[in-house]
């Protein structure tokens, strides 16, 4: 066969391009890290790196669910509001039952149920994801206010707090969770049938239906997972803070979406993955911490952040110029 002979180098080249494409942003991240390290001697320390990882764990986990949803060409605006409600539920159930595990389960379940609702609306009722999840976002924030009567809920249960404040060896527990979630979903996207279908649905939903794939079911699962992961983020957040506040999570959806797209996943579906998302999450986290460390005035922080993000995507574009 003529093809196999030609295949090897081409294959390698395309792998190389793909590497650059995904990891162009990684290079940029490293560049930003290098710059901050030069500007502040406190930046490149183990303590600070762990600090950054812990800080990004919450949005980082939400961004995994968001990646799945966006890969199917959908969007989930409700995740931020789920953080508010799930946190309140898990904190209050922990207080009520005295059992943190039941509390945590309740928080996760709350997230999953809201996600399932979104999924059903999007898949079975064929509603636009943007509007459905926007409506859910609005309604869920309202439900949180009603549920908490607008008041924060303090939790001091040590097991509960461990989720957010504990350590496994030198590694903060939220970071452990972050890593587990990324590894798990990296595997799911690459190695499972469900992951395969996520790409095919996002790449061409019609062709997927015609290939006999239960597209609705898989889309529904994706939204449910997104809700579930937002629930997990809620538990971590409330455990980190020893408290659930009703406004917690506001705006996290945008941070998560930004990280996903910075990481190279297309809003039109079918292209990308959680590896890129992690880089996007880290880039945003490093920016925030770095600017605090080198003491950029708060009024200028947004200017600098916006500018750096723009420069990052421009650089990325030039790195990838041929691959388009």
């Amino acid at each position, binding site marked *: 066969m003529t093809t196999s002979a030609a295949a090897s180098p081409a294959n390698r080249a395309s792998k190389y391009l793909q590497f650059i494409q995904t990891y162009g942003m990684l290079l940029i991240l490293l560049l930003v890290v290098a710059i901050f390290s030069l500007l502040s001697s406190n930046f490149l320390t183990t303590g600070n790196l762990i600090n950054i990882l812990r800080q990004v764990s*919450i949005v980082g986990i939400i961004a995994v669910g968001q990646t799945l949803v966006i890969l199917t060409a959908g969007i989930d605006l409700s995740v931020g509001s789920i953080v*508010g409600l799930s946190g309140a539920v898990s904190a209050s159930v922990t207080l009520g039952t005295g059992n943190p595990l039941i509390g945590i389960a309740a928080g996760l379940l709350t997230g999953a149920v809201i996600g399932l609702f979104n999924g059903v609306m999007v898949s079975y009722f064929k509603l636009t994801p943007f509007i459905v999840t926007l409506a859910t976002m609005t309604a869920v924030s309202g439900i949180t206010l009603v549920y908490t009567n607008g008041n924060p809920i*303090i939790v001091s249960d040590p097991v509960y707090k461990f989720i*957010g404040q504990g350590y496994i060896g030198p590694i903060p527990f939220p970071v452990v969770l972050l890593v587990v979630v990324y590894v798990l979903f990296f595997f799911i996207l690459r190695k499972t049938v469900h992951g395969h279908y996520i790409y095919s649905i996002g790449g061409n939903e019609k062709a997927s239906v015609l290939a006999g794939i239960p597209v609705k079911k898989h889309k529904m699962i994706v939204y449910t997972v997104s809700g579930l992961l937002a629930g997990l983020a809620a538990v971590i957040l409330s455990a980190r*803070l020893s408290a659930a506040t009703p406004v917690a999570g506001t705006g996290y959806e945008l941070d998560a979406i930004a990280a996903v797209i910075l990481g190279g996943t297309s809003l039109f579906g079918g292209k990308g993955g959680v590896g890129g998302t992690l880089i996007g999450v880290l880039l945003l986290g490093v920016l*925030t*911490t770095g600017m*605090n460390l080198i003491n950029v005035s708060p009024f200028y922080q947004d200017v600098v952040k916006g500018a750096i993000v723009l420069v990052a995507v421009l650089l990325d574009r030039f790195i990838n110029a041929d691959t388009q």
Partner: protein
Amino acid sequence: NSSNQNAGSNSNGNGTEAEGGNQAAGTDSVKIGYVINTLNNPFFVSVKDSAEKEAEEVGTKLSVVNANNDIATQLSGVEDLIQQGIDVLILDPVDSAGALPAIQAANDAGVKVITTGRMVEGAEIVTHLGYNEVKHGKEAGWFLAEALGGSGKIVELQGVMGTSTAQERSQGFQEAMADYPDIEILSSQSANFDRAEGLTVMENLLQAHSEIDGVYAANDEMALGALQAIEAANRNGIVIVGNDGTIDAFHAIQEGRIAGTMAIYPNQYGEKAIQIALQVANGENVKELIELPSIFVSEENVEEALSMQE
């Protein structure tokens, strides 16, 4: 002109001991971190400006971080400041809950903590510069009730639902109203501490109620928005009361367009926070609780209030 010496003299019940003590040795080697709950309104912008001004005057290093009304960002900000190697942390909590781990993290790193504004239950802090939002809501409510002669129809504009400021001010206001059976609260609506929303919500309330005698707004921004709506609708004679004591509100009081505001002098607030932080850094003794000057400003004392707000 605003020398830091006058901080205590004309405000009610403050107890700073160390006037003049802030020039103590080693100021320039002290690093202060200030996590401020929001910069989304003029009140906190003044707090920040005055703190920065004071820090510059005394020549100390100050890093300000904006928590953006989010407790997680607040915690991250504290962590980042600890990484930066600050000596003293001034924390202006986003919420009365959720700040404990941040304070603990600072303590663990050997950073001394001062809180301002809201009290954080069970926290290990050197001192608290505080005010009481329930009390503020109450005082503003009383003023409004008295201005209406103890009877009338009023509406309440609340802040961002679910934030402790909004909750506590509303609670105080409602408690005050409980003392006035002849005052009817027609409606309580949220305008999210925002001037533009204050305008639209008030426009709607004016549509809904042909008779409104008074407006209680949980901050001045909403009060000023409501004022625009009322003036545009020519519904003269509605008594408006706000909270915060921003310059714009003072001017409106001067012009007789709003009746009063529950003022927490933001410039003194920032300035004093820095002074106390320095004392703490230098190992001086400070009181456990320092009440911040807050006073209800109306037509009567607005000139004085304005002169203090320079």
